């Protein structure tokens, strides 16, 4: 799968650094618009802190609503970075090259966004310090390390630290290229970041080995982060439909499903915005489409298993939640309709769109399929968390539904603007497609004769 032509290194530099050395006309208006949305959300958060969570739709029964749904959604998106970068790097998949950096950066910004959600969800965000960093000797407040709510911040902060360092190490050779092409204070900054990079064999060897080591070390973190996020729910004995042993793999595979779909959509947008047709090619989108069929089917298996595990025990409380999820009832919110929509747009519609090769190479169809997956995966989390809380539970006598209000809707919507804005700002100062990775792919490329055909091939070093 080597469809593109070999480009001169000078052209690769020019094309991939264009977003940094030249500012497109649309750039600042788009960033300003996204910034305005983020500002509106920040003001809303301020109002929410001042007046209390009463202005949201959260209530006595449903305490984890839009914010926690959005938290899990963004944690899921963050799994694309490691999936694409670390696994494909270790597997030496040639088509990973243009996708890795965008995926890794999306990981960092998604994690940062995800972490905001539980903090504002507490209502009094400063108190989270007592919970996540709780060594308040004076007041005798200590952490209960038996709860996943303490494991969660430690795992997420480990993942954020690892991903950030991973990106920085991969960026060092590109910092050196920028150092040689800028003047003034940008040159000073790139010089410091490049740490004296010259590109000698020793530096390259250490950089590659560090990349391999970090890839191998981040993979277990990647698996543990979403497992621990799933335990926030899976270890809650009191809420039926949450207490499931299948949650950890189900969440991890779901995260890869939504994350890789998000990366595909981001790559299509970047290709269009910066004219990177020679770098993000149809073959790359095609390969990711095929990968997504496998991931989506794995995710669908776990979805079915999660439902079967719930029903199999025939516990009355559990069956009541399942009835709320799947059967029409006298509730304000028709969860069963949303369930049908969610399964349709998360699995059946996108997989049908990904099956024909011609459709996988159609960027409009791929964009539609990937957006569909992510809308569906957001709904999945909502439908997984809210009905279990809304249902009547042991020793409680209230039934409450959850109707999100404008503050939640605005804040959740603004998180998409926030991540988009951060991605755009990153592309303004650092290359979103790794220069040396693309050039390395070109120098290792060759053609071999197989019978009467000449086919493209790639050298690989063990």
């Amino acid at each position, binding site marked *: 799968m080597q469809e593109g032509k070999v480009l*001169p*290194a*000078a052209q690769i*530099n020019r094309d991939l650094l264009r977003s940094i050395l030249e500012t497109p006309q649309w750039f600042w208006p788009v960033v300003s618009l996204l910034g305005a949305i983020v500002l509106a959300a920040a003001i809303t958060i301020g109002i929410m802190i001042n007046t209390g969570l009463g202005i949201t739709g959260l209530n006595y029964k449903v305490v984890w609503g839009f914010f926690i749904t959005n938290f899990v959604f963004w944690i899921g998106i963050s799994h694309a970075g490691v999936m694409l970068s670390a696994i494909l790097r270790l597997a030496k998949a040639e088509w990973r090259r243009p996708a890795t950096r965008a995926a890794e950066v999306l990981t960092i910004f998604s994690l940062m966004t995800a972490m905001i959600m539980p903090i504002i969800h507490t209502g009094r965000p400063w108190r989270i310090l007592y919970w996540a960093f709780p060594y308040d000797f004076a007041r005798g407040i*200590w*952490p*209960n*390390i*038996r*709860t996943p709510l303490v*494991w969660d911040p*430690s*795992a997420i902060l*480990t993942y954020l*630290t*690892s991903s950030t*360092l991973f990106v920085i*190490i991969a960026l060092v*050779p590109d910092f*050196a*290229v920028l150092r*040689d*092409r800028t003047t003034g204070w940008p040159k000073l900054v790139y*010089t*410091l970041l490049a*740490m*004296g*990079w*010259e*590109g*000698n*064999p*020793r*530096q*390259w*060897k*250490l*950089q*590659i*080995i*560090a990349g391999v*080591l*970090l890839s191998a*070390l*981040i993979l*277990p*973190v990647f698996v*543990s982060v979403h497992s*621990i996020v799933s335990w926030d729910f899976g270890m809650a004995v009191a809420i039926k439909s949450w207490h499931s042993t299948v949650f950890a793999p189900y969440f991890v595979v779901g995260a890869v499903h939504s994350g890789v779909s998000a990366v595909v959509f981001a790559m299509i947008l970047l290709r269009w915005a910066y004219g990177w047709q020679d770098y993000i090619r149809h073959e790359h989108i095609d390969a990711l489409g095929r990968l997504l069929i496998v991931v989506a089917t794995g995710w669908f298996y776990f979805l079915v298993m999660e439902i079967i595990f719930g029903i199999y025990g025939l516990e009355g409380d559990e069956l009541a939640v399942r009835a709320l999820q799947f059967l029409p009832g006298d509730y304000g919110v028709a969860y069963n309709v949303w369930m049908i929509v969610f399964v349709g747009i998360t699995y059946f519609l996108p997989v049908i769109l990904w099956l024909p090769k011609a459709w996988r190479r159609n960027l409009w169809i791929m964009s539609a399929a990937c957006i569909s997956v992510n809308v569906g995966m957001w709904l999945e989390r909502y439908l997984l968390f809210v009905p279990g809380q809304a249902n009547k539970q042991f020793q409680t006598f209230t039934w409450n539904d959850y109707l999100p209000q404008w503050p939640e809707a605005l804040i959740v919507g603004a998180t998409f603007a926030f991540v988009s804005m951060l991605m755009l700002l990153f592309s303004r100062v650092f290359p979103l497609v790794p*220069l*040396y990775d693309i*050039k*390395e792919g070109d*120098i*290792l490329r060759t053609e071999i004769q197989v019978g009467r055909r000449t086919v493209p091939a790639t*050298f690989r*070093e063990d």
Partner: protein
Amino acid sequence: MATQAILGLFDDAAAAADAGDALKSAGIPESDYNFLTDVPYPEGALGEGMERHRLYVWPLLGGAIGLIAALVVGGLTEMAVPMTIAEKPILAMPPLSVMCYTGALLGAILFTIIGLIVALRPNVGIGLSDDRISQGLVGLLVNADAEQRSQVTDILNQAGAVDVKAGS
């Protein structure tokens, strides 16, 4: 004796490797010259020796330190605040193992970065360089003393250098 940096630029990796061999034959030790490239060439492609390193040791060391730190912090916290939950033990191993897993990985990752920085020996200033290296040319940077300057320049030119530059 004062040395001067001389940079030969080659448009072909094989020519640069030949120039390296010629320098070696002329008695210039490998430690006095270095190849500069904008991509990682397969090891030995430029005729350079195998680079030795101990980067693998760092994540092992970091993992051990992270594991011990998580064990101590987590265990001491549990014992310092003996919260009795049902009949579960005060020192609960399953949660502690989760903390240890995360701690070990965080330690391994942080120490990998520390090890890389130590091995790279970062230096903000760079020696003689040329922007054309980032455009695909292979650089051969030689530190030559006064007696060797003309000989090195000749070797680089004879090997097919497209340009030879001398530092101050």
